[in-house]
């Protein structure tokens, strides 16, 4: 005797569903209309049929080139927000946000990039600066500390660390951070000005 799943005779439990056929007809019709519309759109853009590759970047890049970075910020923002794990999309938003002087979008893009590349010193440094500009010195301090650890031979994260500490009221620690920045880059005007302010504050 064969073991296994017991087999029952086919049995269908009919469940009445009034209006079901209308819903199906409506859904099917809308879908078919969409298909035709999709082919029409594709023909408008110079293809006989929609291309095999399912991607949006080519069309978005063409849009940015045609209308400029600042005016296409809404489209680029939506792309980055939906495709939040796509570095290219997030970088495109960062570029457009900077071109349009939009600090909120810039900060959002930098946070997204930090998630994607946690150990990117450039991103952490820029993130610290963006947070300082947003008036969030505590968050900027955390990012600058991490940036200093990632790129210890760059003066910039030490400057941001100094600025964050100064805004938080730790003037002596801020002065120490600026001194480290000057050790790395003795000509840094930002570090020199920051050191002077920290010494004056303490």
């Amino acid at each position: 005797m064969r073991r296994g799943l017991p087999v029952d005779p086919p049995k269908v439990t009919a469940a009445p569903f009034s209006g079901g056929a209308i819903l199906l007809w409506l859904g099917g019709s809308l879908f078919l209309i969409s298909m035709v519309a999709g082919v029409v759109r594709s023909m408008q853009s110079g293809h006989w049929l929609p291309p095999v590759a399912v991607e949006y970047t080519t069309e978005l890049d063409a849009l940015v080139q045609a209308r400029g970075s600042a005016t296409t910020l809404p489209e680029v923002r939506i792309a980055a927000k939906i495709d939040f794990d796509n570095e290219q999309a997030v970088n495109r938003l960062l570029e457009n946000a900077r071109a349009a002087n939009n600090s909120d979008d810039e900060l959002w893009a930098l946070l997204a990039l930090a998630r994607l590349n946690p150990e990117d010193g450039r991103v952490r440094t820029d993130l610290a600066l963006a947070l300082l500009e947003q008036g969030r010195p505590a968050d900027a301090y955390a990012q600058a500390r991490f940036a200093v650890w990632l790129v210890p031979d760059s003066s910039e994260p030490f400057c941001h660390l100094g600025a964050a500490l100064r805004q938080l009221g730790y003037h002596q620690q801020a002065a120490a951070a600026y001194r480290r920045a000057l050790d790395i880059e003795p000509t840094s005007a930002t570090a020199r000005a920051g050191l002077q302010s920290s010494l004056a504050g303490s």
Partner: protein
Amino acid sequence: MPESSSQSESLAKRLVGRTFVHPLFDYMLIGGGLSLLVIPIAFAYSGEQTLVSLELLPWFILLSNSAHFAASTVRLYTKPGAREALPMLTMALPLLTIAILSVSFLFADRTGPVLQAIYLSWSPFHYAAQAYGLAVMYSYRSGCQLESAHKRMLWWIAIIPFIRVLLQSADKHFLWWLMPNPTAVTVPPWSLPLQALVMLLGLLALLLPVVLFLSVWRSKAGTMPLISLLVVITNGMWFIVFTHYDGFVWGTIFHGLQYLCIATIFHVREQRARADNRHGTRYHVLWFYGASLLLGYGLFNCWPQAYILLGFGPAESVLLVIAVVNIHHFIVDAYIWKLKPGDSNRQVIATTT
């Protein structure tokens, strides 16, 4: 010694199990054995970063992945008794899907990340659930009566790769919503214990199926066919051997292939069992794959263009459609493979050829 020879022959038969088409076909395409051959070749040629810039990738996606998404819908509407047994799914879901998709376009910056996170979280779970379902199906088909405890254990083992994916990348799924600062898990001190846990889960995903296999072997359930073991291990392999992105790409391609094969087998057997059937296997195979390919092309390639025509941006048009089609597929799939009494699935599993 003819007795011992027949005993070992019987053991070999029990280990191979009752396949649907041919042991080689079932083990390679449905069990995922082919991916075990392709993975080392891919590594040998490209290292860990594979397939990312391959020009043929869109074609792979269309022929395997897009067609597999559509295959669940094709099967839903061709499965005997499905419209009567699943009226909401067959009649209301298409319109509901279109409505949800269209409304979500109006608030794309808010709905987009949510839909994206839902489908990206659901995908590895869906793959794991399919591996579990196939393992159970082949066991039943081969006469292995899995006990409840074994089935529970198999389910937990099968979803280990899913849990691992959730922990591996905190920003690509629904856990991301719950975190005030998602960057925290990617840097020390959280990153180190998480990485250790991820490694441990990877190891468990490959070892525990073997432990379960031996446990079933020693029980009264009968011999679990090796394909049940293989299907669970290969699903883990896709996400463990490769980087996160490549794991998704390979997983998507081989899962699609696996799905298309099993869905085609069920479709062909259901159609051939119809009293009014006048066609042979080849016709039904070509019809099912052709319909799935055409619908897949329509869903992923034509549908986004329609929304662009309506004036929506290219990103939301492509990404929201992909997310919604994925979610629709997961919902449909959760119903069409049920082994409820009276369902045609039971007849297909029980048939030999």
